[in-house]
């Protein structure tokens, strides 16, 4: 099958004699037999290490869990600097975990969690930090400092956990460049290989923000939530 891969300045087309295999197997075939200079990242081959996210025909996928098809166009993730070919630099993206305080504030002993408590954020803690959501997020076109989908999902993971002793601090911290900057477009949900919806998590964080007295800053700033003609804008 023929696969087009974005390299430095142009797309290069490779003819690979494989069928019904993952994109990662195609990339390995190219690297090992056709062109050893091709750069891409991979690790576990089983969709848990988050190394091999790329875009195929414009949509983010894990190369190890996507079955390649003839004519596919493979490109690196968006919103991150490209190191080379399909390899991107994740430093700034991962740095948002720190900015968003995506961790448990304190070490706590003997907090009893029920089966139900654990279920509350079981899905969010499935995140593999592949950055598919980060690449798909349109907010970065207008705000480069947006904390972003995976970091905010991580914040929800901890805020929703009984072991978090200071949820208010977490909520305070995500008001700027955080929950209200999201457009709720749902692009992150559609590309998550783990079935996580950062959009839904951001909505939950918004609801929690409201409980702590915050409101949507774009809401009511000019017109109290109504359009200039007086009709509701929501």
């Amino acid at each position, binding site marked *: 099958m023929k696969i087009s891969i974005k390299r430095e300045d142009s797309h290069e087309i490779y003819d690979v004699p494989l069928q019904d295999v*993952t994109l990662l197997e195609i990339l390995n075939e190219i*690297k*090992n*037999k056709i062109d*050893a*200079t091709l*750069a*891409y*990242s*991979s*690790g*576990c*081959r*089983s*969709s*848990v*290490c*988050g*190394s091999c996210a790329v875009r195929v025909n414009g949509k983010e996928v894990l190369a190890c*869990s996507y*079955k390649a098809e003839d004519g596919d166009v493979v490109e690196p993730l968006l919103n991150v600097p490209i*190191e*080379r*070919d399909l*390899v991107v*630099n*994740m*430093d700034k993206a*991962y740095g948002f*975990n*720190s900015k968003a*305080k*995506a*961790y*448990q*504030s304190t*070490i*706590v*002993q003997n907090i*009893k*969690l*029920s*089966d139900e*408590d*654990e279920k509350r*954020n*079981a899905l969010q*803690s*499935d*995140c*593999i*930090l592949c950055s598919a959501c980060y690449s798909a997020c349109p907010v970065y076109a207008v705000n480069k400092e947006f904390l972003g989908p995976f970091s905010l999902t*991580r914040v929800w*993971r*901890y805020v929703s*956990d009984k*072991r*978090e002793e200071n949820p208010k601090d977490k909520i305070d911290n995500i008001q700027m460049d955080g929950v209200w900057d999201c457009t709720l477009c749902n692009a992150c949900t559609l590309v998550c290989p783990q079935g996580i919806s950062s959009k839904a998590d951001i909505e939950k964080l918004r609801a929690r923000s409201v409980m702590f007295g915050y409101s949507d800053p774009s809401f009511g700033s000019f017109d109290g939530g109504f359009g200039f003609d007086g009709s509701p804008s929501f």
Partner: protein
Amino acid sequence: MKNRVIVIGSGGAGLVAALSAHESGAKVTIITKEYPTRSQTCMAQGGINAALSNVDEDSAELHIQNTLKSARSLANEDAVRFLCNSAKGAIEWLDSIGVPFSRTKDGKIAQRKLGGASATRACYAQDYTGLKILHTLYDRCTALGIEFLNERYLLEFITDESSNKKSICGVSVLNKRSGEVELIQSNSVIVATGGYSRVFHNYSTNSISSSGDGIAAALRAGAVASDLEFIQFHPTSLRGSSILISESARGAGGYLLNSKGERFINELAPRDEVSRAIHDEILKGESIFLDIRHLGSEFIEKELPQEAKLAKLYENIDPSLELIPIKPAAHYTMGGLDVDEKTSTNIQGLFAVGECANHRVHGANRLGGNSLLELVVFGRVAGESAAKFACEQDLDIDIKRYKNLHEENLEQIKSYTNEINFYEKYSELGEMFYKDVGIKRDKKTLLCTLENVKEMKKALKNMGVSDKGNIYNSNLIEFLEFKNMLFLSELILLCAIQRDESRGAHFRVDTQESKTAFDAHTIIDKDGVISYEN
């Protein structure tokens, strides 16, 4: 700089060691060839052992006895006791930092049964135990502001011999992004780079990163390794891709069947026994399957979602309706850098932890659920030891002069002729190892394989890279990894040839009994000189 600890590797062992060194007052930098959370630890599915008795009656003593039994007289009992007695504290610590363990109906940490265990002992988080532990550890590092240097590939450990004992004084790494050699000075370094199962190439369940880089570099610097011949084969990996299907599938009641639909082994026997039984069936011409259909789709969806997804993707089957085709594959390397009870290697200031080290707790065969435990328990020891050492030491040796030397080494490798494609040779190495240095071994074929590996080593100069660039040259990194694996392959073979007996994962068809003369650890240095130590 005084008080500085460098950790090489950002898997579970590295992150626990880093957290522990930080808590002990050291300034910690973690260096990783990828990014944190991408390591092998994320692939651990089954669980982490601790005798909590949350499901049925258990005790640390039973855990100790099970571990010793599986180790086949090749574990250090004191180390095993320390490991198992520390298990409850390890789980409590993981729980205290936010690890989302699955829970029982009455709100206790859920546990399940794994092979070789006399009780229901493995704490788990669905089938993402390693992933969730690893990510929580990473988040803890973020909370404490621990420094990460990402995408740096370990080249060499730099040592000093001006005092009577060899001491570490820094590391050299290749910055993958710039292609530059960088030197980082430190008197206290922790190696946490994982195992070497990828010597088996595609016949391994492991991430492609498990190439034994840290072990190889430490050996070159003068450290010694032990028990390299003990390599665990996981009984159930997917037939085509060697992707792991967790032991918890058998723990929950899954059967192993041959082509006739017959069961042929106690599915929950230790891994070495189950793998050998499968191997024998395959040699008889049978195809082997894991059957979890009777567990029901609801259970599979709840407890084994990852397995179900992978079976669909790679074998195109629905495990709630169909049999899963499997084969054993190289999974865990029991051997590693030889360390003492403080995790110190024989090089002063160089510590090793996790799969790259041999803490002498697994012996000839590791129990499922003991490796995640090992990395927490010994990770904490390594961090404390390294921080204490960094604090006490004031050795300050200028290592800048090594930059040119290591740059020249890389230039030389880039000038290799590249007449032979090393990727093909690597694939050959894996085939050869799976066939002849795998589940069953024979002295004659081991000797023959040793000759082949030596030939391959000689031919390295005719291999090399086609990519001569600096920026993100993964062709070069993969060649360096291959060189490390080839170097370790020879040492593994020497250990396997010299151990004229069968024990746990080392099964010799030409000498099938265990011998008391070999109730000892194989110690080997970079030149292949072997000694035995009790």
